[in-house]
């Protein structure tokens, strides 16, 4: 299939998008296009139908309430990062979003694209997982909700079935005295893909110790990875050295990276530990300040 023979559709409601995606196996969702168009240039070929979903109001809406955030799947990264409420409630998610590509890329790139591309190195995914985000999926048989951590099945593979698309994300309101943080390592300062990413969310008890924690690593396994052992090491602590060392060791142990042009196995494992402790410290300080 080539660009010359592709069709371009811009449905204005979710039903229209679902109908197009269900009818044609070769249809693909075009949101920001920052992966789809690049993959085409790299020889993947053009889809039979581009289904541009940015004209669907629900996919571009941002609703923030006491329950948390409901945000359209095609809201661009720049708009998310520039939203001061989102930035103050989920600073880790915001900083992960701000790390995607460059300023120009962020004008187009979306969370749904980052999620559906299903790269192990996606920046927003570990941060969204750390905050318990859920993807709302619409399809021919209605809507279903899948937590972000269960969405990706492997590199390039998701739970989406024919005719389905992500329409919204929901992030529950952060508990009081909780906060998140996301860090990634790249050799450059921007325009790069994570060698390792780490998202951490912690919630403090009344005494200031960590009551609950989530630690998520990116780019060190086929999918972003919850590291339960690292979270357990943090719980009950005030980030004393022993707790941090144990969390780092747990992350190093949990990481099963590959050797590739972006990093070696040994390097990625070490960095998984370093970023775990650094992100935990930032999340902890943020939670203390709340």
């Amino acid at each position: 299939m080539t660009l010359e023979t592709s069709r371009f559709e811009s449905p204005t409601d979710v039903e229209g998008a679902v109908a197009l995606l269900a009818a044609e196996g070769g249809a693909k969702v075009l949101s920001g296009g920052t992966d789809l168009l690049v993959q085409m240039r790299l020889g993947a070929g053009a889809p039979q139908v581009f289904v541009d979903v940015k004209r669907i109001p629900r996919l571009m809406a941002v609703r923030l309430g006491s329950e948390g955030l409901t945000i359209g799947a095609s809201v661009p990264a720049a708009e998310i990062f520039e939203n001061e409420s989102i930035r103050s409630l989920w600073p880790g998610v915001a900083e992960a979003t701000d790390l995607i590509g460059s300023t120009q890329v962020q004008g187009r790139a979306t969370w749904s694209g980052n999620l559906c591309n299903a790269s192990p190195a996606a920046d927003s995914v570990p941060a969204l997982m750390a905050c318990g985000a859920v993807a709302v999926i619409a399809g021919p048989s209605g809507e279903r909700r899948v937590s972000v951590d269960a969405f990706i099945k492997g590199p390039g593979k998701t739970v989406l079935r024919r005719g389905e698309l992500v329409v919204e994300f929901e992030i529950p309101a952060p508990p009081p005295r909780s906060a998140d943080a996301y860090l990634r390592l790249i050799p450059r300062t921007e325009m790069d893909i994570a060698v390792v990413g780490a998202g951490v969310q912690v919630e403090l008890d009344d005494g200031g110790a960590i009551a609950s924690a989530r630690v998520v690593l990116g780019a060190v396994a086929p999918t972003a990875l919850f590291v339960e052992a690292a979270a357990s090491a943090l719980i009950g602590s005030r980030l004393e050295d022993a707790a941090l060392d144990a969390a780092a060791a747990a992350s190093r142990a949990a990481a099963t990276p590959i050797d590739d042009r972006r990093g070696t196995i040994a390097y990625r494992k070490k960095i998984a530990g370093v970023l775990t402790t650094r992100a935990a410290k930032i999340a902890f300080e943020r939670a203390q300040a709340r």
Partner: protein
Amino acid sequence: MSADTNEGQERKFKRIGTRPIRHDGLDKVTGRARFGADYALPGMLHGVMVRSPYAHARILSIDISQAEKVPGVRAVVTRDDFPDVPIGWIPAGSTGVDLGANARTVMAREKVLFHGHAFAAVAATTELAAREAGKLIKVEWEVLTPVLSLEQALAKDAPILHEGQETKGDHPTPEGDSNIANQVCFEGGDIAAGFEEADVIVEGHFETPMVHQGYIEPHACLANVREDGTCEVWCPTQGAFGVKGEVASIAGIEPSLVKVTPTEIGGGFGGKIPVYIEPVAVVLSRKAARPVKITMSREEVFRGSGPTSGSRMWARIGAKSDGTFVAVETKFDFEAGAFRGSPVGAACMTVFSPYNCENFRIFGRDIVLNKPRVAAYRAPGAPIGAFAAESLIDELAMKLDRNPIDLRIQNAVAEGDRAKYGPRFGTIGFKEVLEATRSHPHYKAELGPNQGRGVAAGFWFNAGMQSSATVSVNDDGSAVVRTGNPDIGGSRASMALMCAEELGVDVARVRPLVGDTDSVGYCDPTGGSRVTYATGMAVIEATRQVVDHLRARAATIWDIELDAVEWQDGNAVAINGSAEKGSMSLEDIARKMRLTGGPIVSSASVNPPAAGPGFGVHVCDLEVDPETGVSKVIRYTVVQDAGKAIHPTYVEGQYQGGAAQGIGWALNEEYLWDAEGKVENAGFLDYRIPVASDLPMIDTVIVEVANPLHPYGVRGVGETPIVPPLGAVANAMRHATGIRFHRLPMSPPRVLDALDSDGASS
């Protein structure tokens, strides 16, 4: 022009040294400037290169019959459509050319010699049809074992890339066919006695990877061969006359039939001196009888165009305990890629030439292997050699507990000292540059934790070569200056400034043009840091002739002797007893041109055999994250002798650009290869040149030690700035981490590995 016309030291300039807005600036910032890929003609076909899936294979046969049947395909070409230009090295300029190798680089003949080597091309009504057809070309390959490292190339039973290639060079060379294409050696004094005499010796093995220039504009060209056999080519190139010659010899056309128009050019750094697609577009156009455009993708640029050499080096320095160098020695092995021609010679010539040392042996080998054929890259070879030399000098300074700048000043060459490759230096500014660095606030600034400061020096010969310029006066007194050198670094503004200075008019009244090969006198390429120097010389000379015409016209109007007319800042002024005539402006004279003898146009050509070398010293502050190995350049200063800065903004731009490229080379850039010799990172995502946010604002200091060979004192400035950074960054890394890195790039995984193993793996 002779040295007695030199005014660089004394002359008070009115316009030289100012910073006017460049004449091409508006078009460039508004996107209107037309680069290679912006050109099109009615009826144009799209050409694509078909590239080798093997790094080393013999072509037994090629069948294009299926490809020709694809709808829309108008021409398919292979080696059979090109003349068989014999392989052979012809001395030319300071190095030489091998037209047969050039032809085989463009279109494989007997063998493909690297993954991505073009062996066919297709022109069709759409790019897609051309690509589809390319896939249908059937080749019978005899796949050969690829030679992918210097070790493999030098092994006793190594596969030989070029049967019949014997090692050239005047030193003991291996017998029979060899992958060592050439050996160079510069010797002086008594090397054994020198090291015997030394109180301290530092030595090391160093490695650098193959790196690409990373120009922002991929190669593109449009060619049109017409019914009468004449041929026009539009392309971004550093030298249109060079393209004309290469197209003629590779495509097999009379040079007189070829006209080349240089488009705007988005960077070259040496990589747009050779041709890759132009002769192919011409041959496709000839076969299809239609215009043909070929545009390379970024991936093709990485696979199919010329980077600079990877290297393996050994070097040592012997010094007295007072710091005096008494012996220096090197053995350099450079990757040439598919054909001979690595810059190992220039690396050997430059490596220790900034320092006096009587006893030396500088040895280097040019080695072919199955990687892309290297092309020039900004001061070719010099940064690689300087990485070894400047790292060792830093080690020596530490061993002797000496300030590294003082140690360099102690050994620095000055006027009259002999370079290792023979000639004596003329007026140079190395000591002035070192002293300016030592007194710069950056060099005295405090450093924080995990930070280190590195200093390194370097030099480049700079080139003279052939240039032509034509200056014409319009009837409103404005002027046009036309040269044949594509403007790659702000040279239009510099040419206009020099013309304006001589005429005595505002630079906005001078329009600089870059001509095609039919409209200007011959110009060697924009390269060798030669344009402001040599082409500038032609501009000054042509403008001075114009001024003589203007004086003569005034003398005619006043009816006085020519000697009684002086040119003063845009006006003819009567002197010598005719002072009562007063003065006459350029505008007045121009308005009367038709009555006093007609249009005023002058041309000048130059061929200066030498240029003034440029010396630079860089200071780099680096901060290293000890837990991740990630380093960041936090402050960087370039100090360099420009002789005379014509347009200081563009001089500073050259200083900053060279430093930026060198920092990328030092920290992150490298080709990654798979086991079959395919480049794994053929794109800017994983071939990491620095992005703007990776670098601090690079500070610059322009030192001006006038070059007596140029009427204003100009030295070339384009290449020297990339010579010191590899050493400067490595030395900063040494002082930040305590580890001496001998291998580039110093990427985060390598740095962390070295930190975690106490430097054992560096």
